[in-house]
């Protein structure tokens, strides 16, 4: 090994504390990137593989009832590769020891052969035997929520008739990766089950023997599905077709895509910020580190080492640290990524996980770290190289100190000499002071940006589940019902207050933009469901026209006063021009709202409602639910408390887990930065401080000069960091908006306090470590040599 390389390794070892801190900063930046990107890549890859291997359909259409002969005509549509007809039934379930209402979607299986499309991954058991009419396969999340195993019994109410089913298998299907009941936003694993039964017994039970009410189709690769869907609509219209839709509008796929989109945004935004910050800090640290080697650089130059030799030497030095940090970051990132991906499997029901770490992800993460380290090194080297060696070998000439504004402002005369030194030192090198401040400020900022999601989620919960939704229970009817059915519900024991609502699937169109969601009708002066403006004040629904959530108005690019085309996908499927009369704020979902009677008029129907909200007397909750379960026209009832719990367990948990790891890594970066700044300040000033010790200053007095300066810079960084943190959070917020939910920008005092706290604790620990080195300063040695 050459002497220069020996120097390299010994320098690394000598500065091991500092090297380790830089290494941690790089590792954290790389780990964030690897964790996020690999989680995102893995989920996408896993979904693609599941879709491919289990033949997820490209198009879907539901209808009232059609004979098999229709299938032949559908198969003749150009672009259709294969299709499968089936029976899909809505049912209510009764599960032992579970009092809350449970709804189910029962899907037929061909029975004679495995399904052509939407195959099943059997986790356990087997497919139903077509000869045994009570056998059913259930989806895994439902089985887990109730602890059901093959062999267990289950009661289903199909077409108003109760029948006992036996679980023969537990499965996962590509249609139900995100098992969500129509009309809800958040999966309720216990309250919504997917069941698969053989075609024959289900057809008989549902009155569909020899007929079908649902078709799934595979289309030729790469074709535009629109003409096929239009033709399907034509063919199914006489049979009560409910509108053909492509995979893009399939509920599980669509929600999954929305969540992936959000994950993608988080997966790129945070690593970008973290790596950016780590890169900046690395640059600053490396610049100063190389600057402390000024005299050694001069010596090597005096002996004829070329600038390029020195560049290679110091680049090796820095790249070794980068390599170490990257290796550590990669390992941590892969570990975190695997765990994150597996956590997502709690919400997304994939049968397997393909963990993917692409070379691009590694290249990006490591490349940015290495690039910034190299840039920092070169800047310092160019600065060192520009000095004639003779000059570089001298200790730097005394800087131009003067009595600055700060000192005048702080009544210079009364200041002690050490305090004066602190102030003058800060004023003499404002750029360096600014860089140190910026570094610490960024440490505060990334902590804020990692943590604020907690506040945002809390605000979403408060607004959505408390301010906006004042009810305890939502009841859905199996079919649109007359308004007066509310009275029979109101008469039930335990109901305090009840309000009806109408909800219909609708496509909103404005110009070339369109969006498929639901249009809800609320009664005038509804108290249980409030629409809020941007100040969270209740808004009354105008008697005519449609009110949109702000996100929907943005998606469609419409403003109040403009006209909107509304295509209703239920009943007579009217298409109407409706004026937009207002925009409201909602964080979850994207909907349109109308006055209930206006919606009934739009639908050209009588005074129909889809369900009702109610507040209840808590003690009667159980008996009320039991009563509701027995009512045949009630499709389901959802407890608000349960919806909140579901939200907290799914979306909130996802975001908060992400935020937790980000906060953890941000803390590491914060410590690395603060410690390095302190350590470098010590090596830059050890001579000066040792001289003071020789002159009779005590250890405490000398420490005061160094630590006092650090304290001034750290305190200056705190407010700046909170400001930058708010900026980064605003950027994050604008990037993670999806149709599913918008994250509000809200940063609570506690989050700011935590960020400040982490940086202050890092500063204290660094101070303690530095103080030890400061006390060990060898006075004679430092004064005797120039190095």
């Amino acid at each position, binding site marked *: 090994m050459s002497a220069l390389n020996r120097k390299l390794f010994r320098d690394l070892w000598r500065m091991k504390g500092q090297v380790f801190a830089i290494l941690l900063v790089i590792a954290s930046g790389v780990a964030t990137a690897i964790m996020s990107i690999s989680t995102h890549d893995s989920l996408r890859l896993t979904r693609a593989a599941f879709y491919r291997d289990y033949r997820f359909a490209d198009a879907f259409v539901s209808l009232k009832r059609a004979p098999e002969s229709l299938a032949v005509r559908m198969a003749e549509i150009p672009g259709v590769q294969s299709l499968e007809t089936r029976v899909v039934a809505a049912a209510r379930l009764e599960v032992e020891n579970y009092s809350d209402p449970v709804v189910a979607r029962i899907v037929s299986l061909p029975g004679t052969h495995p399904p052509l499309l939407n195959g099943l991954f059997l986790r356990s058991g087997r497919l139903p035997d077509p000869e045994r009419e009570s056998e059913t396969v259930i989806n895994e999340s439902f089985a887990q929520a109730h602890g059901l195993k093959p062999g267990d019994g289950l009661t289903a109410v199909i077409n108003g008739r109760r029948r006992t089913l036996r679980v023969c298998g537990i499965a996962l299907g590509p249609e139900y990766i995100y098992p969500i009941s129509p009309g809800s936003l958040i999966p309720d694993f216990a309250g919504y089950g997917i069941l698969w039964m053989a075609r024959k017994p289900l057809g008989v039970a549902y009155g569909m023997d020899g007929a079908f009410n649902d078709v799934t189709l595979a289309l030729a690769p790469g074709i535009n599905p629109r003409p096929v869907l239009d033709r399907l609509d034509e063919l199914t219209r006489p049979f009560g077709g409910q509108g053909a839709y492509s995979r893009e509008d399939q509920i599980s796929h669509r929600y999954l895509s929305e969540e992936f989109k959000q994950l993608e945004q988080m997966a790129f935004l945070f690593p970008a910020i973290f790596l950016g910050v780590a890169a900046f800090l690395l640059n600053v640290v490396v610049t100063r580190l190389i600057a402390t080697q000024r005299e050694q650089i001069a*010596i090597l130059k005096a002996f004829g080492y070329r600038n390029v030799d020195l560049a290679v030497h110091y680049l090796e030095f820095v790249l070794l640290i980068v390599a170490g940090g990257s290796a550590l970051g990669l390992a941590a990132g892969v570990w975190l990524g695997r765990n994150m991906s597996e956590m997502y499997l709690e919400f997304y029901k994939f049968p397997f996980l393909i963990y993917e770490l692409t070379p691009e992800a590694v290249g990006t993460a490591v490349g940015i770290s290495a690039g910034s380290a190299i840039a920092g090194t070169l800047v310092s080297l160019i600065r060192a190289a520009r000095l004639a060696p003779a000059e570089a070998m001298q200790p730097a000439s005394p800087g131009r100190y003067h009595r600055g504004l700060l000192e005048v402002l702080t009544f210079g005369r009364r200041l002690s000499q050490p305090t004066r030194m602190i102030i003058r030192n800060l004023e003499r090198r404002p750029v360096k002071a600014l860089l140190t401040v910026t570094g610490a400020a960024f440490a505060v900022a990334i902590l804020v940006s990692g943590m604020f999601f907690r506040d945002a989620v809390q605000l979403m919960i408060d607004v959505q589940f408390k301010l906006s939704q004042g009810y305890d229970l939502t009841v859905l009817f199996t079919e649109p019902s007359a308004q007066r059915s509310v009275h029979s519900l109101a008469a039930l024991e335990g109901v305090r207050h009840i309000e009806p609502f109408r909800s219909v699937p609708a496509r909103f169109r404005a110009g070339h933009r369109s969006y498929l969601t639901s249009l809800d009708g609320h009664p005038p002066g509804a108290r249980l469901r409030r629409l809020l403006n941007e100040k969270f004040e209740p808004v009354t629904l105008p008697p005519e026209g449609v009110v949109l959530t702000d996100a929907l108005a943005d998606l469609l690019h419409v403003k109040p006063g403009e006209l909107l085309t509304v295509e209703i996908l239920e009943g007579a499927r009217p298409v109407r021009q409706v004026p937009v009369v207002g925009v409201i704020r909602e964080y979850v979902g994207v909907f349109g709202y109308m006055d209930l009677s206006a919606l009934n008029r739009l639908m050209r129907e009588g005074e129909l409602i889809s369900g009702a909200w109610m507040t209840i007397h808590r003690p009667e909750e159980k008996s009320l639910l039991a009563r509701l379960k027995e009512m045949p026209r009630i499709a389901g009832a959802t407890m608000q408390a349960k919806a909140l719990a579901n939200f907290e367990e799914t979306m909130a948990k996802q975001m908060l887990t992400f935020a937790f790891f980000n906060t953890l890594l941000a803390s590491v970066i914060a410590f690395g930065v603060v410690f390095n700044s302190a350590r470098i300040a010590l090596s830059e000033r050890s001579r000066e401080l040792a001289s003071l010790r020789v002159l009779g200053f005590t250890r405490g007095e000398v420490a005061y000069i160094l630590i006092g300066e650090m304290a001034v810079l750290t305190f200056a960084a705190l407010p700046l960091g909170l400001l930058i943190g708010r900026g980064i959070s605003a950027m994050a917020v604008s990037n993670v908006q999806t149709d599913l939910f918008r994250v509000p920008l809200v940063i609570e005092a506690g989050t700011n306090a935590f960020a400040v706290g982490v940086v202050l604790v890092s500063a204290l620990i660094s101070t303690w470590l530095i103080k030890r080195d400061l006390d060990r300063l060898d006075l004679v*040695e430092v004064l*005797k040599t120039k190095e």
Partner: protein
Amino acid sequence: MGCEQHAGAVESEPPVTAPNWGPALRSDSVYKTGQARPAIVEDVAEAVFSARGITKIYEMGEVRVEALRGVDFDLYAGELVVLLGPSGSGKSTLLNILGGLDRPTAGDVNFRGRNLSRARDAELTEYRRAEVGFVFQFYNLIPSLTARENVAIVTEIAKNPMKPEEALALVGLHDRLDHFPSQLSGGQQQRVAIARAIAKRPGVLLCDEPTGALDSATGVVVLEAIDRVNRELGTATAVITHNADIAAMASRVIHVSDGHIGSVEVNAARKSPSEIHW
């Protein structure tokens, strides 16, 4: 490329067995700079350095320092010159310019016919690499390298160096090869610095206050090392000091004060460093 050719040319010269100093220097004459020197000097002894009209002005912060004000200087093959003067007289500046660490503000410096005052940075680097051995007052060893490695760091980039062990033996440190600077006394560190300077077989050895940080007894040992290198290898050597006693070991003594060369004395007989005390 041109620089490498030059380095090759130097190698082919046989300085190792050259005489100690040129015949012209045996006279006792004392002459002022700027006066005509005996013709014989230029005819017989080869000038390693010849500098004319060197001026150096430093702008340090708000202060403008005129460190050299038109200096003429020659160094001849094999001789040992002591530049004597108080601190601040400009002798270190002169040495730095001769060593290619710095450029004069005005004037010309020639090393074996090669103009250093107008050389580019890369040329100066090649020049230092091939020709110059430095010894500094504060040793300037690399603290993370052992004695052997501190020498190796120079021999690794030299064309025809001695082994680091050989160089360290020359300064009497064959038994301290694997000691780190922090494990060596000041005198020993300075001798490592001398070994480091001569290991590349430089064309010239430049020593800036080599005993400045040492006590008298240790200083003598260091001076002996320099003297030995000069006599045995014939390396042209310039030693800067403010210590007049050291002048006795020189072949010529050049007095520097206030950026000028005051006078030059030629010693009839060089004293051995062991005869010197201060």
